[in-house]
């Protein structure tokens, strides 16, 4: 990925979910700038559009209006090319983990790497070890606790060393000890590998781990967007 101060710039994002009477205008002209190597926390009340923002930034769904620049480049036209960008540069930790139930933890990560055309090189085992789920790596998600599943989801998101990690409530299902361990991993990858992290959280103490916190409400960023950091 080419070097640029801002890895992600979103301007005037609009997104409506649902159709007809059930349609909800979730993002309402949202602007957000994320600097390279930054650890950013997005906070806000439930239903304010935080997860939708992450899906739009993660190129899982396109905005209805507005523009996104990734590393100084506008997004290419066509979903296939955006998918290629997502495979190469973005890691995603979903709020509900979204692990494949038919595969073991290890195989979940392996499939993710295979989709991205990446090899393991021992990193996966290190991540499993660091996140305390090495023993569970041969188990299927249904044989693991919620917290263990969450940590496996983080391993999957980090395995291919994405330049940008988008995490939706990554500590939402963890106890305080495991939350701290996970945040430490995120901080380490952020500092050692220069990985940019955008994390959604409800917890002020979790958000405190980030370099910068932005508040979001009613589909817009309220404040913190221009902050230089903590």
């Amino acid at each position: 990925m080419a070097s640029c101060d801002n890895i992600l710039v979103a301007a005037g994002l609009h997104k409506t979910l649902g159709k007809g009477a059930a349609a909800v205008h979730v993002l309402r002209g949202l602007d957000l700038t994320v600097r390279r190597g930054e650890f950013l926390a997005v906070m806000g009340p439930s239903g304010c559009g935080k997860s939708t923002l992450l899906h739009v930034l993660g190129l899982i769904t396109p905005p209805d209006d507005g523009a996104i620049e990734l590393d100084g480049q506008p997004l290419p036209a066509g979903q296939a090319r955006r998918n290629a960008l997502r495979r190469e540069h973005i890691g995603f930790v979903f709020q509900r983990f979204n692990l494949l139930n038919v595969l073991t933890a290890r195989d979940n990560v392996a499939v993710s790497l295979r989709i991205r055309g990446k090899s393991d090189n021992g990193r996966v085992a290190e991540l499993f070890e660091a996140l305390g789920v090495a023993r569970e790596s041969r188990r299927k998600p249904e044989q693991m606790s919620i917290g263990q599943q969450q940590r496996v989801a983080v391993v999957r998101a980090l395995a291919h060393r994405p330049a940008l990690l988008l995490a939706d409530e990554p500590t939402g299902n963890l106890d305080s000890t495991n939350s701290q361990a996970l945040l430490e991993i995120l901080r380490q990858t952020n500092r050692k590998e220069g990985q940019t992290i955008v994390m959604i959280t409800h917890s002020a103490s979790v958000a405190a781990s980030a370099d910068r916190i932005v508040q979001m409400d009613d589909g817009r960023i309220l404040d913190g967007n221009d902050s230089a950091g903590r």
Partner: protein
Amino acid sequence: MYLPLANILHYKLRSVLSALGIGIGICMLVTLSGLSRGSLYEIADRWEAVDADLIVYPDVWGENVTTMSGIGVPDRYAARFRAKHGRLVEDVVPVFLWHLRLAGQDQTVAGVDVGDFQRLVGGRKLSAGRVFDPDGAFGEWLEELLLTDSDSDEVIEITEADLADPQHNGLELVIDDRLAAAGDYAVGDVVTAANHRFEIVGIVPAGGMTRLYMPRRAAQMLFGNGDITKSTILFVKLADGAEASLAARKLRRPGLEVIQVRQYRDMLEHKFGIMFTYVDAVNVIALVIAFLFIMITLYTMVLQQTRQIAILKSGGATNFFLLRQVLAESLLLTAAGTVIGLALSIAAAWAIQHFRPLLTVTITWHWVLAGATAALAGAALSALYPAWRATRVDVLEALSLE
């Protein structure tokens, strides 16, 4: 683990039912083909087992020679061929064919002189009992009665009792062991067929020309309107070094066709070609149903795995990757179905031949390969629409993220 394989192992019932559906389709293809062709080829095999090179029959019969019986070729040709073509012909065997209903179905019975019996059964030794009319007494008795020149105008009347006279019993049968198994017959049993009572005097291993053998003179007398001067066909055994096609041309006479024994199979196939067409049509229908089953299964699979597909797409999986997953799962199920189909076919063949000993199911690799190829091609085609549906899955909707 490979994702398509993991899916198959995870959704066990669905996988088993799918593979079974495919397997039944392949089993139908292999078994029906094996049954229709097997039974027919078994007849051809048996005719080819006759220790002879040529078949002589009335030319007006054409391909119907494969099903004809009764009066056909005058016996005098046997003597003429021997006399005129002594260097070409080693032996000529007149055979009178008829049909007797035994073991619940019509059986071709070959009336043959006791001295020619071994040639007809391809040298097989009797496994029980003895050959009919072993000393030729019946043949001699009838020939003396009917073939000796006589100036007398007296009508010769031969009764059932005359035929069955213990001194020269002509109502004797030798049957093959498959017919014996099918009818639970043993040496010494008396059976009634065509309004006559026959005694089973011997059992020969299957593989000879027919399943039933009786004295030719008795067959001519009973089923040839009392005329014992004509048989149905002649088998000709050529002398060593004689070239069959050349010999056939030399022996051909006006009104008589001469073919090589190995041509019989082609004639049989041609004669019953319409039956193969019918069976193949049934097979195609069976396969189409099996493919529809695969398609429905895969479509259900895509619906069932919408969330999984959405997860893969959210990770950046390309349409090609998703298509490959669905296709691989389809092909794996089909491969399993093919194995099941083959196993079912072998079991069906065994069951058919065990409970219906007179039927032959010939499972050939040709048809197994044809079934497997058709199934794999069908599975690939059947996977296309479900795979396309997979690429159309809406990630956010499927993951119910909001």
